[in-house]
């Protein structure tokens, strides 16, 4: 009796693993299919029934895509936009998070409450008025206009406030003050070095977010030279939608940096994403 239930339990676990494996296959399938297609010559792409792995793998789709559209430029633009945004988010989160966590001043609760309360209003809801504001200051079709909304992150401020508030003892700051240190020095030399993990988490999220932005560049960048990968891909898709191979090659190029970041920092990303709830 006992042995039988143990056996049943084993079979149950095995069945669960089969389901999980099948699920895992479904999860990676789109990426693998995209990757496989990107390396296929045109006749293989139109093969029916489809062959999963390329029979005669080729780089032609990649070279072809980069010749047809300035994907190199798009890629650097993505890197630049995400990079500048990330640097700024790290600095603003550190400064604002520290001030909100460790200093008392009139208006503190109100200001912090405002930062958090407006965080749940989705960007899509106020992108049109923001667009009109940038028309007024003539920032449409400029890098600074594209980057502007991504220079700070409410969740980054929130996360740094939590971290600095709980992980950095006030006595440490007081001791530095007694030694004659100024507040900026304390922030740069005491708080920042002790916040490496939290700042890295904020930076990673900011970079992932900045790499994937789409609707805002779609509104504000008209000049192809300003397109990021995402926008460049849709423009390419619009003009060459039948050229599946090149389209997949471009998609692979756009996905690859995120996959590299993810596989390198897997544990930290999953854990931090769960703890902070940042998207």
């Amino acid at each position, binding site marked *: 009796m006992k042995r039988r239930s143990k056996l049943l339990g084993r079979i149950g676990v095995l069945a669960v693993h089969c389901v999980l494996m099948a699920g895992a296959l479904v999860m990676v399938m*789109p990426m693998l299919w995209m990757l496989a297609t990107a390396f296929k010559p045109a006749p293989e792409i139109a093969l029916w029934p489809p062959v999963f792995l390329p029979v005669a793998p080729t780089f032609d789709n990649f070279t072809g895509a980069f010749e047809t559209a300035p994907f190199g430029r798009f890629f650097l633009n993505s890197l630049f936009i995400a990079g500048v945004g990330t640097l700024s988010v790290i600095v603003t989160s550190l400064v604002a998070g520290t001030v909100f966590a460790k200093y008392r001043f009139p208006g503190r609760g109100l200001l912090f409450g405002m930062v958090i309360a407006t965080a749940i209003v989705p960007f899509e809801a106020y992108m049109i*008025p923001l667009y009109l504001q940038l028309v007024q200051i003539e920032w449409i079709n400029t890098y600074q206009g594209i980057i502007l909304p991504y220079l700070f992150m409410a969740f980054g401020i929130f996360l740094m406030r939590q971290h600095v508030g709980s992980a950095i003892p006030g006595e440490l700051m007081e001791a530095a003050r007694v030694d004659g240190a100024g507040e900026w020095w304390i922030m740069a030399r005491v708080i920042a070095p002790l916040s490496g993990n939290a700042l890295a988490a904020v930076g990673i999220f900011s970079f992932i977010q900045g790499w994937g932005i789409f609707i805002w560049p779609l509104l504000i960048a008209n000049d192809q030279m300003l397109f990021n990968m995402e926008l460049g891909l849709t423009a390419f898709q619009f003009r060459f939608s039948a050229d599946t191979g090149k389209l997949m090659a471009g998609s692979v190029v756009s996905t690859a940096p995120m996959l590299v970041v993810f596989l390198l920092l897997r544990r930290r990303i999953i854990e931090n*994403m769960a703890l902070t709830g940042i998207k």
Partner: protein
Amino acid sequence: MTAARRFLTKRRVLLFCYIALAPVLALFLYVRVIPIGFGVWLSFHKWNLLSPAKPFVGLQNYELLMQDENFHLALYNTTLYSFSTVILSTAIALPLAVFLARRSRLSAFYQTIYFLPVITPMVPVSIAWKWIYDYNYGILNYGLGLVGIKSVAWLSDPDTALWALVIMGVWKVLGYNMVLFLVGIRNIPAMYLEAASLDGANAWQRFWRVTFPLLRPILLYVLVTSTINAYNVFTQVYVMTLGSQAAPGQAVRMLVFDIYTNGFQFFRFGYAAAEAVTLTLIVLGLTVIQFSLARNDPTREK
């Protein structure tokens, strides 16, 4: 002397606070607070980019919106999409998290795989899915053909286009919800489950009587965030309605897409702003409903 010095230090620190916060708050004001307020103001005006006169029209934009068939369709589609995506992704993520809660090498492997879609950018992923859904060469139809199901024109058939988006939406968000549930499950003290075991509860009862009630706050968080995100669906709609073999615009017309069209194709900014305000109110309303449902739960402890 010391009192005067302390006063000076205090003033210096206060000054530091405001100076340090000034750039961030100025940015925040310009990029978020002002646009939100400006958007509400816009929604009460007839604000067309092409005409110089921008008169105050009161609630007219909202009245027109209520009679606009495109808006009705977009609201219906978005709601159907959101509820389906949120319910399906939660229903799959929760049991998944329960199975993966035990730490093992395989568990870490599964987590990585299931989380992969969360961090991949939306545009390439949408392009890949569009290729999967392709009527003639799509791998999905090939797979269905193997088990004897006739090919479906997933995207170009208005009956299936929305569901094709739902499937992709679930695929994209599943890993995120799974990770949130995992954290919640791991935070449940082991002694609760052990106590239930000693009382003779089987695995099924332990889940429904112990794990599930304690997961309620996380469940609420998952529902709220994924509903907000789902209502703002745009990128995949944009990509999948573009080019050949695309989804028919009306079948997958969603709210943000409709806002985008009104604003940036017809330049009716006041009207689009009214639609955006309505979207915000819907999302906030749903959030409030979800919170009050959680609060009124009779099994909740005081």
